C-alpha cells in the first residue's frame, strides 16, 4: 500500500466503521472491470455493477448498525476518521481517507441502497441498448464518486468525488448522444455545474489558505473556534454556496436540471433526483459550521440569509414551473428542484436535522416517482413522456405502478403520516420556530403548490381517457419514441438512432399483444415493479425514524453529532402548528383536482381553453410555459418587437445575469473569443510581429540607392564619410 497512514487519532470502533473506505473503492474497481471486460461478460457488465452495489449496501448496512451502537455507546459520538497521505508538496499534505459520522453513514446507506435498486431496474429498462455496458460502467463510476465524496475525509477528496459525479452526469445525460439535443443538454449540465465549481475551487482554496488544512473535521473545528476572521468565513461560505447552487440546481443555476431529463429515466431517478443533486445540500450540511458562522445563521434578529433566500426562491419558481409541463419527467424534475429548495431553506433557517432528514426521505419517494414515470413510459406510453398526448387512464392497466406512484406522491406532498410530512413540516416548523417568518410562509405556499401540480400530473397520467400511445395509436407514438429521451427539445432523430432504439421497442410490443381499439399498455415486468414496491414502502415508513408527532427522534440522535454547531432546540411538535400546512395541502389537492377535471376531463366545462380566452391567465400561463423566459426571452422579445423599457431591462437581466451562465459559454464566450482572436490576436499582436519584418525589408529597399553602381559616387561617399568623420572627431576632441 503506497499510502502511508497518517498518525491520526482514530477511535477504536467496529470493523465496518474502520473499513468504511472500502465502500467507494469497490465500485471504483468494478468500474474498471466493466470498462475493460464488460462486453465479454454474460450480462454485459450489469452483474458486476449490481454486485458491487450490493456489496456496498451490505457494508453500508453493517456500518449503519455499528454506528448506531457507536452512538449509543458514546454520549458525544466521535466521528471515525482515517487518513492516508496521498501526496505532499511543499510541506502541505494531501490525504485520502474517511470521515465517518452520522451524516456520512446516512448518505452511504442511501446511495448504496438507491443505486442497487436503480441498477436492477435498469437491467430491464435499458435492455438491448447499444451502449448497455457503457451505461452500467458510468452508473457504477458515479456511485464510486458519490460514495467517495460523502465519506470524504478532506476537501480534496470531496472535490474528487464531486467532479467525477459531474463527469458521469455528462456521460449519462448524453447517453443517447446521436441526437444533438441530448449532447447539448449534457454539455449544458456539465458547464452550468462547472460554473458553480469555480466557487468550490476558490472556496476550498480560501479555507485551506486560512485554516491550513483540508480535513473536514479540522475545518469545522476551526470555523467554530472563533479565531478565523468573519470576513474569511463569509467569503468562503459564499464561494462554496455558489458551488451548491450549481450542483443542487438552485435558482438561478437551476436551468440545467430539467434539460438533464434527456438522460435515460434510471439516470434521472438516481443522479438527478435522489443522490447527485443533493450533493450541494450535502456540502452545506457537511461544512455547516462554516456557513452557520459565515452567514450568521440563527443570529438573533436575522430575517434572511443567502442560503434561505436562494432556497426559498427556488421552492416557488420551480413549483410554479411544474404546473405547465406536459412532460411527466419535467414535472418531477421541477418538483425535485423545489424540494432541494426546501432542503436549502431548512439549512438556511437552522433546521439542520429536518433538512438532512428530508434528503433521506425525499430520496426514496422521488426516486420511486421517477421510476414510476419510467415504468409508464416503458410499457404504458410507448417510450413517450408526454402526459397530455400519450397518457391517461393508465391506473387500470398498470395497477402496481399506479399504487406506488400514489404513495410516493402522498409522501412528496407531505400528507400526514407518510415520510414527506415528517421531514418537510419539520423544516417549515423550524423556519417559524427560528423566526424566519418569510420562509415559513414560503414553505407553506410551496406545500400548497406541490400538492397542486402533483395532483395535475397524477390526473393526466392515470385518470381520464387514454390518449395517444397509451391508447395504442402506434404511428403517433413512434415519433415520440425518441422525442421522449430527446427532451427538452423535440428534435427529429437520425435514421441510425431510430433504428437502434426501435430494436428496443420491437420486442416490448411483441410481449404485449395489442387489443383492438384500446391501448396495449400493461404492467411492467418484475424487474421494474420490484424496486417500485420497495421504494414505495420506504416512502411511507422511512419517515418514522424521526417522527416528531410520536416523539421518535432516533435519526436525530444518530446524526446530530455531525452538525458541528449548537443550534436552537427544535420546537416541541404540536398538531396545531401542522394544521396550516395540512389544510393547504388538502386545499391544493382539491383545487387542482377540480381544475384538472374541468380542463382535462371529458365533462364539458367553461374552464376549458380558459388560457386561450383570458388574456391575463393566458399571459401567466405563457410566462410559466416559457420558464419565465429564462432560456429564451431573447427570441420572444425580438420576435414581438417589444421595445418596452421594462422588457428591455428584464431581457438584459435575464440574458446577462440569470441565464448568462450557459449563454456566456455558448454564445457570449464564443463571440468574445471570436472577437479577441480576430481583432487582438490576429491583427494587433500578430500584426506587430509581421509588421517589423516588413519594415526591415522596406528600409532595405530604401537603402539600395546607395549602391548606385557609379564609381564616382562611391568615391564621393567614401571621401565625404571620411571627411565628415574626421571633422566631427576633430571638433569633438579639440
Amino acid at each position, binding site marked *: 500500500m503506497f499510502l502511508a497512514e497518517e498518525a491520526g487519532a482514530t477511535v477504536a470502533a467496529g470493523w465496518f466503521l474502520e473499513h468504511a473506505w472500502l465502500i467507494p473503492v469497490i465500485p471504483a474497481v468494478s468500474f474498471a472491470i466493466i470498462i475493460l471486460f464488460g462486453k465479454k461478460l454474460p450480462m454485459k457488465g450489469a452483474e458486476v455493477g449490481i454486485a458491487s452495489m450490493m456489496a456496498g449496501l451490505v457494508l453500508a448496512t453493517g456500518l449503519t448498525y455499528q454506528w448506531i451502537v457507536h452512538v449509543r455507546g458514546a454520549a458525544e459520538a466521535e466521528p471515525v476518521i482515517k487518513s492516508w497521505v496521498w501526496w505532499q508538496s511543499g510541506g502541505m499534505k494531501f490525504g485520502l481517507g474517511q470521515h465517518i459520522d452520522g451524516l456520512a453513514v446516512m448518505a452511504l446507506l442511501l446511495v448504496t441502497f438507491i443505486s442497487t435498486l436503480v441498477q436492477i431496474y435498469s437491467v430491464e429498462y435499458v435492455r438491448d441498448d447499444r451502449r448497455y455496458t457503457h451505461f452500467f460502467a458510468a452508473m457504477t463510476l458515479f456511485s464510486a464518486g458519490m460514495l467517495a465524496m460523502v465519506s470524504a475525509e478532506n476537501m480534496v477528496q470531496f472535490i474528487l468525488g464531486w467532479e467525477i459525479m459531474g463527469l458521469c452526469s455528462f456521460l449519462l445525460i448524453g447517453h443517447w448522444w446521436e441526437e444533438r439535443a441530448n449532447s447539448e443538454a449534457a454539455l449544458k449540465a456539465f458547464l452550468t455545474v462547472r460554473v458553480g465549481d469555480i466557487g468550490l475551487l476558490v472556496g476550498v482554496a480560501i479555507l485551506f489558505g486560512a485554516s491550513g488544512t483540508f480535513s473536514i473535521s479540522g475545518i469545522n473545528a476551526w470555523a467554530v473556534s472563533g479565531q478565523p476572521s468573519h470576513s474569511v468565513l463569509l467569503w468562503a461560505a459564499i464561494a462554496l454556496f455558489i458551488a451548491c447552487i450549481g450542483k443542487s440546481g438552485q435558482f438561478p443555476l437551476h436551468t440545467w436540471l430539467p434539460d438533464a431529463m434527456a438522460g435515460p429515466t434510471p439516470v434521472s431517478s438516481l443522479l438527478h433526483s435522489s443522490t447527485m443533486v443533493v450533493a450541494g445540500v450535502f456540502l452545506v450540511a457537511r461544512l455547516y459550521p462554516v456557513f452557520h458562522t459565515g452567514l450568521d445563521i440563527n443570529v438573533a434578529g436575522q430575517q434572511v440569509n443567502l442560503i434561505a433566500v436562494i432556497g426559498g426562491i427556488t421552492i416557488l419558481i420551480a413549483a410554479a414551473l411544474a404546473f405547465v409541463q406536459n412532460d411527466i419527467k419535467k414535472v418531477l424534475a421541477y418538483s425535485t428542484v423545489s424540494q432541494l429548495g426546501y432542503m436549502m431553506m431548512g439549512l438556511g433557517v437552522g433546521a439542520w436535522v429536518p433538512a438532512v432528514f428530508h434528503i433521506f426521505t425525499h430520496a426514496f419517494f422521488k426516486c420511486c416517482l421517477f421510476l414510476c414515470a419510467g415504468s409508464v413510459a416503458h410499457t404504458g406510453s410507448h417510450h413517450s413522456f408526454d402526459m397530455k398526448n400519450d397518457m391517461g387512464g393508465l391506473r387500470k392497466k398498470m395497477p402496481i405502478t399506479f399504487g406506488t406512484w400514489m404513495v410516493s406522491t402522498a409522501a412528496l406532498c407531505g400528507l400526514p403520516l407518510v415520510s414527506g410530512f415528517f421531514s418537510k413540516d419539520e423544516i417549515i416548523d423550524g423556519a417559524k420556530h427560528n423566526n424566519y417568518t418569510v420562509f415559513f410562509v414560503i414553505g407553506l405556499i410551496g406545500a400548497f403548490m406541490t400538492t397542486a401540480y402533483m395532483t395535475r400530473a397524477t390526473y393526466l397520467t392515470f385518470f381520464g381517457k387514454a390518449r395517444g400511445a397509451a391508447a395504442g395509436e402506434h404511428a403517433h407514438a413512434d415519433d415520440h419514441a425518441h422525442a421522449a429521451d430527446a427532451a427538452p427539445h423535440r428534435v427529429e432523430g437520425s435514421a441510425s438512432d431510430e433504428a437502434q432504439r426501435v430494436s428496443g421497442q420491437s420486442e416490448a410490443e411483441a410481449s404485449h399483444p395489442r387489443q383492438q381499439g384500446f391501448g396495449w399498455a400493461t404492467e411492467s415486468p418484475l424487474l421494474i415493479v420490484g424496486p417500485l414496491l420497495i421504494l414505495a414502502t420506504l416512502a411511507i415508513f422511512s419517515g418514522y425514524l424521526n417522527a416528531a408527532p410520536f416523539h421518535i427522534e432516533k435519526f436525530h440522535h444518530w446524526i446530530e453529532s455531525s452538525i458541528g454547531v449548537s443550534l436552537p432546540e427544535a420546537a416541541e411538535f404540536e398538531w396545531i402548528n401542522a394544521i396550516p400546512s395540512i389544510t393547504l395541502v388538502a386545499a391544493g389537492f382539491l383545487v387542482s383536482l377540480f381544475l384538472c377535471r374541468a380542463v382535462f376531463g371529458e365533462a364539458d366545462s367553461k374552464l376549458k381553453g380558459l388560457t386561450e380566452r383570458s388574456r391575463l391567465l393566458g399571459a401567466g400561463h405563457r410566462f410559466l410555459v416559457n420558464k419565465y423566459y429564462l432560456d429564451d426571452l431573447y427570441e420572444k422579445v425580438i420576435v414581438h418587437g417589444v421595445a418596452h423599457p421594462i422588457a428591455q431591462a428584464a431581457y438584459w437581466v435575464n440574458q446577462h445575469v440569470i441565464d448568462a451562465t450557459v449563454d456566456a459559454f455558448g454564445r457570449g464566450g464564443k463571440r468574445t473569443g471570436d472577437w479577441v482572436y480576430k481583432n487582438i490576436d490576429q491583427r494587433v499582436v500578430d500584426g506587430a510581429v509581421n509588421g517589423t519584418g516588413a519594415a526591415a525589408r522596406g528600409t532595405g529597399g530604401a537603402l*539600395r540607392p546607395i*549602391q*548606385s*553602381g*557609379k*564609381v*564616382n559616387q562611391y*568615391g*564621393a561617399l567614401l*571621401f565625404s564619410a571620411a571627411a565628415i568623420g574626421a571633422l566631427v572627431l576633430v571638433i569633438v576632441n579639440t
Partner: protein
Amino acid sequence: MLVNNFLLLGAVLFCIGVYGVIARKNAVMVLMSIELILNSVNLNLLAFNQLWAKDNPGHVDGNTFALYIIAIAAAEVGVGLAMVLLIFRNRKSISLDELSEMKG
C-alpha cells in the same frame, strides 16, 4: 616657417585630386587625380622630413617613405592603365558611368 607652405601646397593638391576622383568620368583622368593625391603625400613627407631632420641629421624616414610611395605608385598606375585598356577593348569606352552594370 617654411614647412607650412609645402603643407599648404600638399593640401591643395590633395583637394584637387579628391575633386578629380569624384568629378571626372574618364578613367584615365581619375587615375591622374589619384596620382595627384599621392604626390601631395610625397610633398608632405619630404617637407616633414626636413622638419625633423633639422635637429637630428641623418633622419631620412620621410624620404624613404616617399621613395616607396613613388615606386608602388608606378606599379599601381601600371595595373590601372592595363585595366583601362581592358575595358576599352571590351566596350570601346573608358567612361566610368557606363561601368554600372552591377548595382543595388
